[in-house]
């Protein structure tokens, strides 16, 4: 049938299973917006295009589907850059559709023209500039295919205004997409699987490093089966959390800079590391020269360029994690590593006494207590979306995730301002779920305008502001490494309760631990979005900590008593 390019966009999105998009209109995308009204797609009007990309991202992370963000040319498109880069670093499938000036004026510095395919080239998995209506369908189909296959990632489709306005024959092609230069390898090669088996059989102190792929390739069952059959403990990356239940006896918890010391010490003492879909980021390895020098290493990874990138491994297996484990599982021997596991448990016991969650608050409101109490009150069942900083690390330490896709956080890029919009996106993916955005007072203010979006959409997300009056993580680094010279970290904040009220939303203030349960109940009772302003201890720090680039064993330990964590001596 003959359709306008603008209509073709929505015809394609509907066929890709899209029912919600996050966007902001403008001149070059107006034809598409006009056509949108005739299609069964809900449009969420954001307050800034960065919010649209984070919402699409949060939607994708919560649902496993592709999230879609729409913006106009020029500033609309450039405002998306941070959100696209966030999705790229964490391999999140989103498709961004941007309007572009007419094809005849491209390259003339026309009003609101910007070279968005050029700008986003290094931060997208792929991008397209479409200048003819008849090419829109193919570009969108390929965009979705690329975004959600292989190592997932963001794809941008830039469509000129004249391509949206002109007419083309539309026929949906439902044959598999064929891209000769794009052939992700899902199944591992048999010979490398054999080589891996030899190492697995010999290992005395094996350890699984479970990354984001446990979630993205739906490998929960297979990872658990592998761990249980081989009696191998599992250390998690930040993005892996929830991939297997926190309560599972083999789950050690998070590794890396703010991981528990027993996890990092286990890595350093292991004789075999099984890296399951993780990428040996500097935040988990510390000093590469001293990283797990005693261990053989097997790396299962969908992206061949990640193998040997940071850590030289003994066996690199290119493949989808789930597919690869399915190949391995029939051959892995049932083993027991009683001694090794007892050894790790002994390290655990020593550390647990330092843990803040077991210590009294002594009248202070500690962020770790807030998050731990939220975990108890939500029975660990909420979807938590964090921002970036101290609260993010406390969340990773004190909210124990049992289910995949219940922790949504910007890991690779560390994007402040991510939480609120991503939480809104997650709510659209999981309307029945209890969604909590846990944000710092700094990051919250970067995208706080999206409270209007939540209010206009009449959706409920719970925003827990961990308000310490500082850019806390930076302040912590200044305390540890810059002689407490607090350059540009103290914040003078607005009244967040009033800010919520100004949006017609409820605001609650909490200043002591005893009030957390009642604040939680009050938040639940509210129909709409709620902001809770937790006025926490100002100069609290995240422990333990491996200083950037230090050896994993060289952790700054958690102080033994709360007195040591309190602000001024």
């Amino acid at each position, binding site marked *: 049938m003959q359709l306008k390019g603008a209509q073709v966009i929505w015809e394609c999105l509907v066929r890709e299973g899209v029912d919600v998009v996050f966007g902001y209109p403008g001149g070059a995308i107006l034809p598409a917006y006009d056509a949108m009204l005739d299609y069964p797609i809900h449009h969420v009007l954001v307050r800034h295009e960065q919010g649209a990309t984070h919402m699409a991202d949060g939607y994708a992370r919560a649902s496993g589907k592709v999230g879609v963000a729409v913006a106009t040319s020029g500033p609309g498109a450039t405002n998306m850059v941070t959100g696209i880069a966030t999705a790229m670093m964490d391999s999140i499938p989103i498709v961004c559709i941007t309007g572009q000036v007419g094809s005849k004026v491209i390259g003339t510095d026309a009003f609101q023209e910007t070279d968005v395919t050029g700008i986003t080239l290094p931060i997208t998995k792929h991008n397209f500039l479409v200048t003819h209506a008849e090419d829109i369908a193919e570009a969108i189909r390929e965009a979705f295919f690329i975004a959600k296959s292989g190592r997932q990632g963001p794809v941008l489709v830039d469509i000129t205004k004249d391509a949206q306005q002109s007419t083309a024959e539309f026929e949906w092609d439902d044959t598999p997409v064929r891209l000769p*230069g*794009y052939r992700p390898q899902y199944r591992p090669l048999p010979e490398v699987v054999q080589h891996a088996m030899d190492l697995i059989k010999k290992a005395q102190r094996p350890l699984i490093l479970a990354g984001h792929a446990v979630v993205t390739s739906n490998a929960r069952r297979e990872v658990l089966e592998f761990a249980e059959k081989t009696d191998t403990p599992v250390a998690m990356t930040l993005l892996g959390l929830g991939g297997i239940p926190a309560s599972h006896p083999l789950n050690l918890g998070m590794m890396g800079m703010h991981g528990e010391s027993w996890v990092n010490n286990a890595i350093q003492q292991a004789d075999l590391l099984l890296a399951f879909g993780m990428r040996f980021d500097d935040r988990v390895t510390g000093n590469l020269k001293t990283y797990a020098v005693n261990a053989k290493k097997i790396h299962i990874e969908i992206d061949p360029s990640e193998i040997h990138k940071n850590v030289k491994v003994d066996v690199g297996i290119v493949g989808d994690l789930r597919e690869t484990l399915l190949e391995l599982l029939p051959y892995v021997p049932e083993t027991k590593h009683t001694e090794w596991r007892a050894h790790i448990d002994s390290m655990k016991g020593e550390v647990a006494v330092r843990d803040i969650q077991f210590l009294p608050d002594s009248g202070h409101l500690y962020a770790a207590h807030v998050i731990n109490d939220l975990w108890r009150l939500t029975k660990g069942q909420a979807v938590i979306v964090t921002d970036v900083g101290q609260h993010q690390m406390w969340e990773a330490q004190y909210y124990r995730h049992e289910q995949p896709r219940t922790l949504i956080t910007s890991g690779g890029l560390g994007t402040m301002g991510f939480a609120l919009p991503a939480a809104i996106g997650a709510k659209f993916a999981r309307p029945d779920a209890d969604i909590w955005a846990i944000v710092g007072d700094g990051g919250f203010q970067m995208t706080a305008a999206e409270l209007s979006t939540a209010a206009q959409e009449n959706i409920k997300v719970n925003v827990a502001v961990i308000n310490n009056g500082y850019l806390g993580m930076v302040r912590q680094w200044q305390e540890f490494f810059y002689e407490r010279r607090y350059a540009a970290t103290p914040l003078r904040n607005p009244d967040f309760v009033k800010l919520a009220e100004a949006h017609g939303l409820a605001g609650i203030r909490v200043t002591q631990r005893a009030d957390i349960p009642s604040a939680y109940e009050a938040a639940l009772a509210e129909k709409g979005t709620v902001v809770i302003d937790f006025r926490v201890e100002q100069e609290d720090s995240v422990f333990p900590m491996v200083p950037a680039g230090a050896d994993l064993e060289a952790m700054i330990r958690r102080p033994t008593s709360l007195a040591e964590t309190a602000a001024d001596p």
Partner: protein
Amino acid sequence: MIHTLVVYVEDKPGVLNRVASLFRRRAFNIESLTVGHTEQPGVSRMTIVIDGTQTNVERVEQNLYKLVNVLRVDDVSSVPAVVRDLALVKVKANARTRPEILQLAHIFRARIVDASKTTLILEVTGDENKIEATLDLLRPFGIVEMVRTGVVAMVRGPGRIDSAEVASWSSAARKPAAEQEGDSGINHSV
């Protein structure tokens, strides 16, 4: 060690930008890069020369494969291959030096493609070493201007790749005939 990569790419606007951008952001060093058509419409061929002591060639290959428009990458450094660079060299020449330059040209099988009262242009073809050697000997006469095409390479014998494989990649082959000519309208980046 110097590595020569033969890279087949889809002939889309912006593909050179994608490859160049990759080298830049991953901090890979390029010694030389050439690009041109192949026997198959829709498929272009790049020859990229990399210094393996500065840049990890395996990482370059893997990252090139991450580009959707990159079809195939072959490192031809360890197989017998014809490797050619072409240089045009304009040297100062007068009645006294001209015969000497012509003699050098003869030794290096360079062609004289232009002559004036004060200059000669030599066209030298060969691998890096031969061109460097020629330049070294011409330098004392005074090089006025010099330009090099960059290296192109081809594996000797039947090689590892056949025309059927190249043809299967062609986006022209995947599209209806009407779209084969001219601008397809999809620029994989500008």
